[in-house]
C-alpha cells in the first residue's frame, strides 16, 4: 500500500511528531539518571561536537607565553589543588569516587591527560564546557591566570606525586595526608586552619615560593592587605585564583590573615637589573611622566606617603615580574581592586609596557618604601637588605 505524500500529510505528520515529543517529555518516561551513563552513540556524538568546537574556537586564542616557567606552573598548581583536583584528581591523588558517578564523569588526570594543544587547553579552562559540569574561569579576562593553569596541565602527565605535592601544597605538604583522594572541601568550606590554606602558596611568612610565582605579602600594610582580600572576596579585584579562597574565608578570618601577614618581617627579593633600566624607572617613580599625565609613584608609594596613608601598598622589594604583571592588568583595564582602585586605574592605563618594566624594576630593587623615597639612585640599588 502506497500513501501519496502531500503537503497536508507531511504537515500533519510533523505536527504529530512534535506533539508526541512534548507528550513524551511531559510524561517523565525519559530517564535523565546519571547512573547509567550515556548511550555509546550519544557519548560519541557529544564528545565529537565538543572537540570540534574547542578545535575551531582555539584558533582565536592568543599566542601562548613561554609555558615551561616554574613560576607559572606553581601558580597553576596552587589553584589546581583546590579548584580542579576535586573532580579531576591529581598525580598521587586518585579521582574522588563521587565525581566518577557523574555523567559525563570528568576525565581523571591522576594518570593521563588527553592530547590538547596549549591553545585548546586555554579555551577549555577559560570558558569551560557546557553540559558537562566543567565551569568557566571566574575571571575570563585574567588570561595570565588561565595560562598559568595551562602551564600546569601541560606538565601534569609527566609529574610525579612528590613534585605535585610540592607544587600544590608548598611548605604545607608535610602536613597533608598522602595518597588520599582529592576532596571537595577545598571548594567551599573554610579549612580548619585558614593560614595553612594561604601558606600553600604564600608561605606562613608571606614570602611566597618558586621565584616570582607569588607576590611578597610579608610586611605589607595591614589596611591595604585587608582591602585587597575583601576586594578579592567581593569580586571587585578580579582573580580566578584568589577569589575562591578569599570568599570562603569569611570577613573575620580575612582580618586575622591581614594582621598576620602585615606582622611578618619584610624580606625584599634579591634581583638584579640593568642600571639603565633602573635609572629610567627611578625617574618615573620620582618625577612621574607629566607629558603622559602620570604623577610620581612615590607621591603614594613612597615612605612618607605610606606613613600618612596605610591604604596604599608598599612596593619595595616586590618581584619585578609581579609588579609588571599588575601594571599590565591596569593597562588592560582588568585589574580592579579596593575602593581606591579607580585612582590607580587612571594612572596605570597611561604607562606603556616599557615604562612599566622600568618602574617595576626600580621598586623591585628596593626603591620607595621606608626612607627609600629619599635614597639616591645608588642607594636604592643597594637597598636590598631587610629594613
Amino acid at each position, binding site marked *: 500500500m502506497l500513501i501519496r505524500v502531500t503537503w497536508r500529510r507531511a504537515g500533519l505528520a510533523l505536527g504529530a511528531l512534535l506533539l508526541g515529543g512534548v507528550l513524551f517529555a511531559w510524561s517523565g518516561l525519559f530517564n535523565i539518571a546519571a547512573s547509567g551513563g550515556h548511550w555509546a552513540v550519544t557519548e560519541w556524538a557529544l564528545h565529537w561536537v565538543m572537540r570540534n568546537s574547542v578545535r575551531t574556537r582555539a584558533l582565536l586564542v592568543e599566542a601562548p607565553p613561554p609555558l615551561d616557567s616554574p613560576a607559572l606552573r606553581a601558580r597553576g598548581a596552587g589553584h589546581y589543588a583546590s579548584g580542579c583536583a576535586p573532580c579531576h584528581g591529581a598525580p598521587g591523588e586518585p579521582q574522588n569516587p563521587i565525581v566518577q558517578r557523574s555523567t559525563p564523569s570528568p576525565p581523571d588526570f591522576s594518570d593521563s591527560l588527553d592530547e590538547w594543544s596549549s591553545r585548546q587547553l586555554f579555551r577549555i579552562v577559560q570558558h569551560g564546557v557546557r553540559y558537562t559540569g566543567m565551569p568557566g574561569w571566574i575571571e575570563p579576562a585574567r588570561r595570565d591566570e588561565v595560562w598559568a593553569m595551562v602551564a600546569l596541565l601541560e606538565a601534569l602527565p609527566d609529574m610525579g606525586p612528590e613534585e605535585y605535592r610540592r607544587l600544590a601544597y608548598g611548605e604545607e605538604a608535610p602536613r597533608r595526608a598522602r595518597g588520599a583522594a582529592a576532596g571537595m572541601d577545598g571548594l567551599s568550606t573554610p579549612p580548619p586552619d585558614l593560614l595553612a590554606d594561604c601558606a600553600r602558596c604564600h608561605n606562613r611568612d608571606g614570602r611566597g615560593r618558586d621565584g616570582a610565582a607569588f607576590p611578597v605579602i610579608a610586611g605589607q600594610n595591614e589596611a591595604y592587605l585587608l582591602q585587597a582580600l575583601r576586594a578579592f572576596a567581593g569580586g571587585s579585584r578580579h582573580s580566578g585564583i584568589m577569589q575562591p579562597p578569599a570568599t570562603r574565608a569569611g570577613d573575620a578570618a580575612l582580618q586575622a590573615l591581614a594582621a598576620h601577614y602585615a606582622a611578618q618581617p619584610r624580606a625584599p627579593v634579591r634581583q638584579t637589573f640593568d642600571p639603565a633600566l633602573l635609572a629610567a624607572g627611578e625617574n618615573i617613580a620620582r618625577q*612621574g611622566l607629566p607629558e603622559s599625565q602620570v*604623577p610620581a609613584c612615590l*607621591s603614594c608609594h613612597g615612605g612618607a606617603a605610606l606613613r600618612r596613608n596605610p591604604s596604599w601598598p608598599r612596593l619595595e622589594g616586590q618581584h619585578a615580574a609581579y609588579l609588571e604583571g599588575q601594571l599590565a592588568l591596569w593597562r588592560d583595564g582588568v585589574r580592579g581592586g579596593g575602593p581606591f582602585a579607580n585612582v590607580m586605574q587612571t594612572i596605570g592605563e597611561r604607562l606603556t609596557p616599557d615604562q612599566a618594566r622600568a618602574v617595576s624594576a626600580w621598586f623591585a630593587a628596593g626603591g620607595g618604601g621606608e626612607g627609600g623615597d629619599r635614597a639616591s639612585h645608588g642607594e636604592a640599588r643597594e637597598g636590598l637588605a631587610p629594613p
Partner: protein
Amino acid sequence: MVKQENPAYGAWLLPWALAACDGPQSALDPAGHEAGLVAHLFWVMLVASGVIWLLVMGIAFYAARGRHTPWQPRRAGRFILVCGAIVPTLALAALLVFGLRLMPGLRAAGEGLRVAVQGEQFWWRVRYELPDGRAFATANEIRLPVGSRTEFLLTAQDVIHSFWVPNLGGKMDLIPGTTNRLVLEPTRTGTFRGVCAEFCGASHARMAFSVTVMEPSEFEAWAAAQIRPAAVGPVTGPGEGAALFLARGCAACHTVRGTGAAGRIGPDLTHLGGRETLAAGILPNTVANIDRFIRETREIKPGARMPSFGMLPEHESAAIAAWLGSLR
C-alpha cells in the same frame, strides 16, 4: 523641488539672537583693543554687504519687473563687464585693503606682562611672567591690567584647543608642539568669559575660563597675593583638610604652594578659594561645589583626566573642600 520658505519664519529668532550681542561673552561688545578692531571690521563688512545686497536686489527687481526693450549685445556686454567684474573687484579690493590695514594693530608687541596658557583636557594651565621677572602659576582664570598690552603664549600638550575671549579679541589655536602668540589690550574693566573654541573631547563644551580686567593697581595687588604661598595654618590633626589632601594622594597631581603638595599633572590649587569659578568656568566657586567636584569629577566632567573620588568618606571630602575653599 525647493521648498518655499515663509520669510517671517525665522523672524521670532531675531530678538533672541540680538540678545547675545552684549554681555560677558560677545565679540560685538568689545572691551579690548583687538575686539574693537574685530567689531569695527564686522560692522564695516556688514554695512558694505548690506549696500551691495540692496544694489544687486534693486537691479534684479528693476530687470524682472519693468517692461524694457532688449539691450543691444554690445551694451549688455559692457554692463556685465563693469557690474559683474570691475565693480565687484574694486569693492572687494577696498574691503580687503581695509581689513589688512587692521592687522598690524593685532600684531603689536606686548608691554612686558606675559601669560603662558596651556590647553589641557579639559582645563587651562596658566602661568604668569611679570615684567620684573616674578612668576606664578594658576588655572582656569586670567586677570589682566586694563590699558596695557599682555602677550599670551599659547600651547597644548594633548590635543588642539583654541583660546577665545570674544570681548577681548579673536581666537587663537593652542597646538601641541608649537607656541602661538596673541596680544590682547583690554580697554575697560569687567569680568568676561573665555571658551575653548576647538573641539577637544567629551567635555569640550565644559572648558571655559573667566577673565577679569582690573585697574593696574588692583592687578598688582592681586599678582602679589598670588605669588605668596597659600595661607595654610599649622595642621593640628589628621582629620583636617590639609592633612587629608596629602594623605589621600591629591598632592600627586596638584600643587598647593606652602604645603608639601607639588604635583604638576593637574591644576595648581594654591589660591583656589579666590577664583571666580570652579572646574574650568562651569560651576560657581562654593565649598559645596568643590566637594561635589571631588566626589563626582567624571559625572560633572565626562572624560576628565582626574578620577572621581566618591570613595572617600563624606566627612573627608567635605574637609578637603572646606580647606581648599579657604585658600584665597
